[in-house]
């Protein structure tokens, strides 16, 4: 035994405590404590300022599901949920063709991924310029002889959510793409070579090699699209501030708290969102548990 080994035993205790105390204190103060307080407020009528508040039971929760003013914002999520299928399909297509050797592959990969790195405010403004009357889109359509298709992309309440959801696809497609590409490329190359020797064409290679390796991650991405579409915030907030029927659940929550001072009601909305996230996580555990264990 080393003479200092006892000392190391004591040191171990000290360093475990010293290294964990700040991260854990921050985790409690800025993640769990806000959550706990949100749960508490969700049963009150607190306005965010006054020292007193009444207990209102489940009233806030039932209001979210019964008041059309609040319930209707869930409908907006459906546009984004639908768009996430388009997003995943595009990502899968581009990831598949770029997983094979191809001239200019690095350029295409970079260009398709880059929007994911751009600042949300910049993206919001880029697409305000793109969609505005006589803007880029209208100009392109006119010159392609499709002038008849021109719409009030942002001003028309029937169109706006399609435009915003399309912007969202533009922003986030690259992320799915890069994840799919990484998964496909983790398949050993010999598998493709062996398949080619056996006379498999590209479709066979996709069907029997790529698809099985990527099925899980696609399922996961579709499931997570539920969270994504209900948590939409930046694009509509920046582009329209929720005007014209583009208010999303999270914008509504934030406005209920900070604009209308109904902190109790807003807290209930926050808890409902968390409940949805937890349900999705549990579904993920149930559906995709096989490979989960090996990481830790």
């Amino acid at each position, binding site marked *: 035994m080393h003479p200092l080994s006892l000392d190391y035993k004591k040191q*171990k205790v000290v360093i475990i405590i010293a290294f*964990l105390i700040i*991260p854990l204190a921050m985790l409690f103060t*800025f993640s769990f404590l806000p959550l706990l307080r949100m749960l508490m407020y969700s049963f009150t009528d607190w306005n965010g300022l006054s020292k007193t508040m009444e207990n209102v039971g489940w009233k806030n929760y039932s209001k979210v599901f019964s008041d059309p003013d609040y319930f209707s914002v869930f409908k907006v999520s459906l546009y984004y949920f639908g768009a996430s299928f388009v997003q995943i399909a595009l990502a899968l*297509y581009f990831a598949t063709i770029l997983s094979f050797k191809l001239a200019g592959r690095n350029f295409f990969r970079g260009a398709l991924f*880059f929007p994911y790195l751009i*600042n949300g405010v*910049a993206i919001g403004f880029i697409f305000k310029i793109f969609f505005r009357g006589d803007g880029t889109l209208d*100009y392109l359509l006119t010159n392609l002889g499709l002038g008849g298709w021109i719409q009030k992309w942002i001003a028309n309440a029937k169109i706006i959510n399609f435009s915003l959801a399309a912007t969202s696809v533009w922003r986030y497609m690259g992320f799915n793409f890069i994840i799919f590409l990484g998964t496909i490329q983790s398949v050993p190359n010999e598998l493709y070579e062996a398949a080619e020797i056996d006379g498999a064409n590209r479709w066979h290679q996709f069907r029997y090699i790529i698809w099985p390796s990527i099925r899980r991650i696609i399922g996961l991405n579709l499931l997570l699209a539920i969270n994504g579409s209900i948590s939409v915030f930046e694009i509509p907030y920046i582009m329209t501030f929720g005007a014209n029927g583009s208010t999303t659940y999270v914008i509504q929550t934030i406005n209920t708290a900070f604009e209308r001072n109904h902190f109790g009601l807003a807290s209930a909305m926050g808890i409902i969102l968390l409940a949805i996230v937890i349900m999705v996580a549990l579904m993920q555990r149930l559906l995709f548990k096989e490979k989960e264990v090996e990481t830790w």
Partner: protein
Amino acid sequence: MVKIKYAGSTLFKYLTLLLGVLAVVVPIVVVFIASFKTSKEYLSTSPIALPENFFNFENYKYAFVDGKMLLGYFNTIIILVVSLTGATLLGSMVAFVINRFKFKGRGVILFMFLAAMMIPAITTQITTFQIVKFFGLYGTRWAPIILFMGTDIISIYIFLRFMESISTSIDESAMIDGASYFRIYWNLILPLLVPAITTVIIIKGVGIYNDFYIPQLYMPKKEMSVVSTALYRFQGPYGKAWEIISAGIVITIVPILGAFLFLQRYFYNGFTQGSIKS
């Protein structure tokens, strides 16, 4: 016959790739072009017509000085440097302790960080706001710094994976020389973690640089603008002055484009690694 089919599919591939790239590039290039136009020129020419003078930096001057983009950079850089330093240290400390020592509660601690990631970040600001105010951080740069500094499961996970590849025999030989655990962490492990640190800095750095709502909520004063909130404020005063707004957009994008071009490999690895668990 086979050859013809093959050429056809290659053509289709490139055609779709071209369309994809155009869809990404056109909205951005239009903004780039507009940023060099005078307001008269912007209103009278088509969006894809090149500017008369590519050296017309008037809009940039407006955006930087009047639009407070310069100030925004100053604040963003301070927030980035302080919070990334903190996040790197805190995250690697947690990973060091969890990877190098067996003790009760390891699993629970990891689970708590994992659970915290699921909490929707924007909606909980309703109550985080009161806590930040309670500590007197509201209206100061410390509010975003502290909120960004807290470590998260993705950073811990990246550090843990990398630390698994650092042999414990390094620790042991240092212990024979009588080095303390803190010395082992500070002098041996931390320098070896540099590739993992780079990954964490890129993922978190992009997130912090692009974050809009936290600075918007906690630093509403104009003098406290960061890049994204400075740009957001262009909507008011410049209303329809799209050429000035365009300059602001370009100013926001250029640094991230530069970083991406120089550190591509790290970006790809970082974002694919970071998502494995989520």
